[in-house]
């Protein structure tokens, strides 16, 4: 009796927790509401199965508790029941899988009008590169990264000349315009993740990965690294600002292009020594960490 009641309480408690939880996802700020919908669908189907199975179990505990002298039913198999359950489960699984695959299909096909943005991850921070007027990013190669060429761009590639360097943790995006995030890493695995955008993908050194989304709500969002990348993983934060065209263009005009960077660099070559130093460590929480390391 007691056992059945406690298990029943666990099931009811789980349902109550789910309905009244104050812990729920952040307000979505991208086009991926279909992902949220698939989760909700999974909750209905999966949650339903969980509740039914557990309730049936509780019923058995109440109904068939041990009684001296009673015999349990002897029925090794029930082909019809087993077949029925197999089909029912298969239908449930298909109902979950089908929408999932449709959403995934959208996720990996980038719309043609997407703006390309390169996210370059390093231990431990972010920087970005945007295509210039031509809308194309220049070719890159980690091997040729140097003080003069912090993104390792192919100097002979004309597409790269007007590329915009954003050497800061903060990236601005246009509202209602799809972005194709191209991920690079110069050292280890990272993952560019903004919970409000729902989407994510690893940055893998030696290759370029991608995903896309369309930000649809103005605001500032925190970027989290979602793939473990060493001791300061948790401090590898960045910022994305989604805004309207006017303020976006203003921000864009303040950034440096590859050619202006090279020109400036030629002038004061002495100022810059190591790649690490230009990554404005100071305004990042990493500085705290560095202290911790020293300690």
């Amino acid at each position, binding site marked *: 009796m007691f056992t059945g009641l406690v298990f029943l309480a666990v099931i009811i408690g789980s349902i109550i927790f789910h309905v009244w939880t104050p812990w729920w996802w952040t307000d979505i700020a991208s086009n991926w509401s279909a992902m949220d919908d698939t989760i909700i669908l*999974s909750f209905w189907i999966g949650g339903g199965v969980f509740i039914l199975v557990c309730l049936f179990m509780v019923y058995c505990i109440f109904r068939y508790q041990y009684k001296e002298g009673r015999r349990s039913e002897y029925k090794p198999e029930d082909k019809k029941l087993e077949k029925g359950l197999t089909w029912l489960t298969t239908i449930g699984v298909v109902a979950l899988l089908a929408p999932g695959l449709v959403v995934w299909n959208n996720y990996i096909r980038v719309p043609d009008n997407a703006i390309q943005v390169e996210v370059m991850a390093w231990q431990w921070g972010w920087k970005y590169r945007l295509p210039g007027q031509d809308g194309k990013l220049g070719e890159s190669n980690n091997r040729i990264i140097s003080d003069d060429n912090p993104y390792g761009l192919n100097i002979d590639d004309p597409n790269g000349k007007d590329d915009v360097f954003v050497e800061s943790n903060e990236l601005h995006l246009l509202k209602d315009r799809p972005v194709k995030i191209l991920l690079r890493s110069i050292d280890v695995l990272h993952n560019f993740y903004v919970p409000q955008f729902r989407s994510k993908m690893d940055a893998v050194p030696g290759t370029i990965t991608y995903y896309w989304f369309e930000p649809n709500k103005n605001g500032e969002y925190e970027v989290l690294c979602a793939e*473990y990348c060493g001791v300061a*993983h948790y401090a590898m934060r960045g910022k994305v600002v989604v805004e309207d065209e006017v303020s976006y263009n203003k921000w864009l005009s303040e950034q440096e292009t590859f050619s202006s960077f090279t020109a400036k660099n030629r002038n004061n070559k002495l100022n810059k020594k190591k790649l690490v130093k230009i990554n404005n460590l100071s305004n990042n929480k990493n500085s705290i960490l560095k202290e911790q390391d020293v300690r």
Partner: protein
Amino acid sequence: MSDELNINKKRNDQIKTKSSATSGRGETDIDYVRPAELPEQDLYHGHSFITKWIFCQDAKVIGVQYTLTAVFTGVVGLILSWMMRMQLGYPDLFPFLTAETYYQMVTMHGMIMVVYLLTALFLGGFGNYLIPLMVGARDMVFPYVNMISFWMFFVAVVVLMASFFVPGGPTGSGWTLYPPQAILEGTPGSGYGILLMLISLSLFVIGFTMGGLNYVITILQARTRGMSLMRMPLTIWGIFTATVLALLAFPALLVSSIMMTLDKVLETSFFMPTIIKAGEALSYDGGSPILFQHLFWFFGHPEVYIVALPAFGIVSDLISVHSRKNIFGYRMMVWAIVGIGALSFFVWAHHMYVSGMSPWFGFFFATTTLIIAVPTALKVYNWILTLWRGNIRINTVMLFCLGFIVTFVNGGITGIFLGNVAVDVPLSDTYFVIAHFHMVMGIAPLMVIFGAIYHWFPLVTGRFLDEKLGKWHFWITFLGAYSIYFPMHYLGFIGVPRRYFEMYDSPYMTSAVGMNEFISLAAFIVGAAQFIFFYNLVKSLRLGKPAGKNPWKANSLEWLTPDVPPTHGNWGEKLPVVHRWAYDYGVPGAKEDYIPQTTAPSEVKDAEVEKT
């Protein structure tokens, strides 16, 4: 030597006469069992303390050795989890918890619990103890290799534990050991720590392979007369299939360990592309970090089932015995175990949906992953249908089984979330994943382990564990663990990423602080409750109620040995002969509500047995 030969000859003669006696008849004898084809195995009997208890060749002793060593590592893993929860619940309160130590604890906790506790306990512990007994063999077929298997495991554990004491400490690369970070500065323990981890894993695989071959061959070759494959208890089916998986999957771990060791020591570039550190390119070039992930998960996903399948098998037997009812749909259960085992080799990349592998893989692996849900769900149905119309003893063993069903269904369903590729995108690398796998492959198998220990302790020691302490142990563990991991899913919904030493003041994180504290408190309590269990073990070993023979009125062979606890060689003079499956409970017409596997049909003539 000549004595032994003579004995063998005599046995062979006996076998011959027996077979001619039975084959001569025209009418079939209902008690007929195929005659033995091979003489019995000769065993080495230890004489000294060392050969009897330390370098012992008796699978039962080896099983206990495996169990004790695995439980020791489990206690270490438990303490590590406490320390992690101290940091997560009360950040900055404990000055000795730095980011380095935190990540080292995360890594060691994960690896210890998955490999050194669960795998070793299910296969090495339960496998060794139960296989020969349940199939009616005198011992494993290669007792000496079996002994070496344990000692390899022991050395692997020593090497693993040694890494706590080397300069730089143990590796802090996460239990998945993803390169490049695992072997680069910037990750704690990237020097000696990771090397010892890789060596320890290699030793584990070598040791396991020796044991694993033993389990498989014993089950295939050394079953007693009448023990057909489709009469084996599901425990054996689970352990058998899991062992086959392990023999196929562990080599992938071994090669990835070896390659990573080479990348670390000789600076080869199996997994290492061009890497820029402090503005300089390292000597690596052209390797693929994703290749490691494929190899790791080619091992890592079957590994989940290496833990789960024995748990499935064992829990089926426990539920059947304690609800006094045949397992529902035995044949379906067997095929589900085998099917899940086979499918588990085709789903590995569902751990890598957002790893940057070809996105087209997503379709394939999501489909295979959700297909595996079907046989798994069938197993769940069959467990609850076994309870249905049974005669359920609500004892500690059954409680743990019920706890298993709840946690396993819960964790299985969140698995469908994560396996469904598009749903995985927002949830991967968040606390949802942590909650999912702790529920399904942490708590659920542990429930089975505890249930199994309460069930078989009387066989191993001849005494019952204390029932009252057992119930306390169950309720605290089950309710506590459930309240740790159930709410944790919701942290994942918020978007809290895993492997974060500290969240700072992320705007959407503030609401999670209270929950983290609550989870930590629950974790401390659940951990402490395990010491009730340890106390129970020690106390009952000497003071427990004597169990006697077959105290649960079970059917399977391990309870039918002439001595309890069984002695070396298990069966005394004569090997048992099996006449039926292990699930004849509540057979109409039979006197008792159970018919042991050794009972000949002529002894229970009135029983209306459907399946044997």
